């Protein structure tokens, strides 16, 4: 285990400026988007996202090459007054994943949100592209910032960019869902802000590593950690706070649902993991962490059972997000501060594999669900028949995503759940092991239920439309990444531990 001081990289490292580029270039493109108007919007967005992918891959390669985190001290002002941007292994991983999925979603939405010449520009399309880029920028800020207030701003930017995407279709139900999402999210961030106010009052700094070095497990710190955690749980839609998520994610257009479910909920989850493993590692008491795992377990069970009972495909996929998020919370109890390093690292790798595999699988699944709705003109699960003959690639994409969600080998979902299961059993948490297995079986039930309907005969009088091949391949490509992750070796990945004191 590294000493805590090793975390405090306070000097700008070579390549640290890349982190600034990752955040600022998308913001510059946003200004350009508003200035140049809607016709070129999608081209600007794709160009900015390609650049972001390039920057993210460069960051990941540099982190892997030097085996140490990149850092950039903004403006030369060191913490506690200034802000340090810092990318360790998990930041670099999430930057690459986020850029890749955003690019996929943008390519998918290329035609849906076009602004053809000769027609008046539509406001919805400009809003969609702006919000998409703003989400990408805010997520990069969340992945790299190490100042708690800066992270608050990032998480709010993410919410404000996500709400318009959830509301863009209009209609009373969608607006209601978006409003409920906003109220939950703002409540969550107010609690988070209250927590960091208390932390600032107690320690006079908001820098993550600075706080970790002087943290005392006293009443004020515990209260602050509690508020911050509950606030972020509300934003992550963990079990008791999950009610806002399914209608909001299901009401968005397909490309929007894909990024909301695959990435936006992971923003606050990332922050939660960052806080408990980097800022409050000394506060991690087994009992509190068991509570988080309990909520995770309830999310897996309740989310999966509710998904089984849905009659609309997009709602089923959204409830499956609630369930899959639950798995990620096992890491809090399975990577304890005093367990053997191997078990802790196995759980840590399992949790991040779950985050990434779920991101790709869910993006592919939402895009497939969107295409299915386009082919059939509705998304009632009962009447999905005929889809496999009309759009076989859509069914294949759905099936491959489902493979990863169920955790069948070979898939990223299998690796993730297997590693979490091994860690759970090795530490004697057989109850969480049982939940992991039960969740997989429930996921199997709802995925196979849908697949059986998709391969049935078309309903009488159903008229099936054709959809373009390009978008089917995008959905299939994202799902395929989730499955190909199953080829990774079943062991802790050293990259994920770079720059961490696990």
């Amino acid at each position, binding site marked *: 285990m590294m000493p805590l001081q090793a975390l405090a990289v306070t000097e700008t490292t070579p390549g640290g400026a890349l982190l600034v580029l990752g955040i600022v270039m998308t913001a510059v493109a946003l200004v350009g988007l508003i200035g140049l108007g809607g016709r070129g919007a999608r081209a600007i967005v794709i160009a900015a996202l390609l650049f972001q992918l390039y920057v993210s891959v460069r960051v990941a390669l540099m982190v892997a090459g030097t085996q140490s985190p990149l850092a950039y001290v903004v403006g030369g002002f060191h913490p506690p007054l200034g802000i340090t941007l810092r990318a360790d292994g998990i930041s670099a991983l999430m930057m690459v994943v986020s850029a890749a999925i955003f690019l996929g979603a943008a390519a998918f939405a290329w035609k849906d949100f076009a602004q053809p010449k000769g027609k008046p520009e539509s406001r919805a399309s400009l809003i969609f592209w702006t919000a998409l880029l703003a989400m990408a920028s805010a997520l990069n800020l969340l992945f790299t910032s190490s100042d708690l207030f800066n992270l608050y701003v990032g998480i709010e930017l993410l919410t404000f960019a996500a*709400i318009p995407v959830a509301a863009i279709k*209009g209609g009373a139900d969608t*607006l209601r869902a*978006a409003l409920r999402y906003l*109220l939950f999210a703002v409540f969550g961030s107010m609690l988070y802000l*209250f927590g960091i*106010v208390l932390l600032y009052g107690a320690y006079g700094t908001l820098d993550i590593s600075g706080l970790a070095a002087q943290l005392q497990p006293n009443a004020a710190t515990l209260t602050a950690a509690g508020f911050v955690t509950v606030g972020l749980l509300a934003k992550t839609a963990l079990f008791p706070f999950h009610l806002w998520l399914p209608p909001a994610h299901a009401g968005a257009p397909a490309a929007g649902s894909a990024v909301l479910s695959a990435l936006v909920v992971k923003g606050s989850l990332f922050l939660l993991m960052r806080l408990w493993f980097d800022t409050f590692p000394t506060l991690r008491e087994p009992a509190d962490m068991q509570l988080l795992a309990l909520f995770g377990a309830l999310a897996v069970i309740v989310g999966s059972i509710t998904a089984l009972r849905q009659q609309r495909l997009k709602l089923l996929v959204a409830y499956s997000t609630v369930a899959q998020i639950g798995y990620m919370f096992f890491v809090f109890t399975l990577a304890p501060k005093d367990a053997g390093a191997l078990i802790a690292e196995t759980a840590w790798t399992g949790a991040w594999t779950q985050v990434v595999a779920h991101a790709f699988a869910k993006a592919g699944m939402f895009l497939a669900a969107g295409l299915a709705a386009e082919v059939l003109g509705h998304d009632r699960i009962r009447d999905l028949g005929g889809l496999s003959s009309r759009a076989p690639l859509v069914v294949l994409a759905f099936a491959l995503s489902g493979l990863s969600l169920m955790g069948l080998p070979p898939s990223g979902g299998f690796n993730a759940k297997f590693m979490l299961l091994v860690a759970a059993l090795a530490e004697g948490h057989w109850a969480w092991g049982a939940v992991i297995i039960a969740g997989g079986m429930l996921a199997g039930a709802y995925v196979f239920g849908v697949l059986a309907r998709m391969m049935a005969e078309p309903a009488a009088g159903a008229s099936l439309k054709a959809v373009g091949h390009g978008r089917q391949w995008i959905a299939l490509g994202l799902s395929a990444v989730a499955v190909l992750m199953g080829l990774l070796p079943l062991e802790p990945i050293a990259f994920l531990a770079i720059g961490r004191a696990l």
Partner: protein
Amino acid sequence: MSPVLLFWLAGSGLIGLSVYGLIVNPHPLCKLLALNLLGSGVFLLFGVIARRGASAGLGGDPVPQALVITGIVVAFSATAIAVALLLRLHSEAGEASIDEEEDGQP
């Protein structure tokens, strides 16, 4: 009672009141106002912390003040988005309520 303690109590009272309002009031506008009140409570506490941290002879610790201003801007943006959604919802549905309605399901 010292003035700092008074502000502490006022801030905490605001937070308590607003959480209560947020939970019991079903109307989204009331919830939105409660959230704004919650923000005010948190900002007030931050102001107290700034005053308390002013030991170097300054009028106050400037960092919390800078952060509070940012926080106010963020809270204002959230309110603006929520009001826009509410107005749109009112014009589409004829009433602004976030209760689930099952009759809209085809």
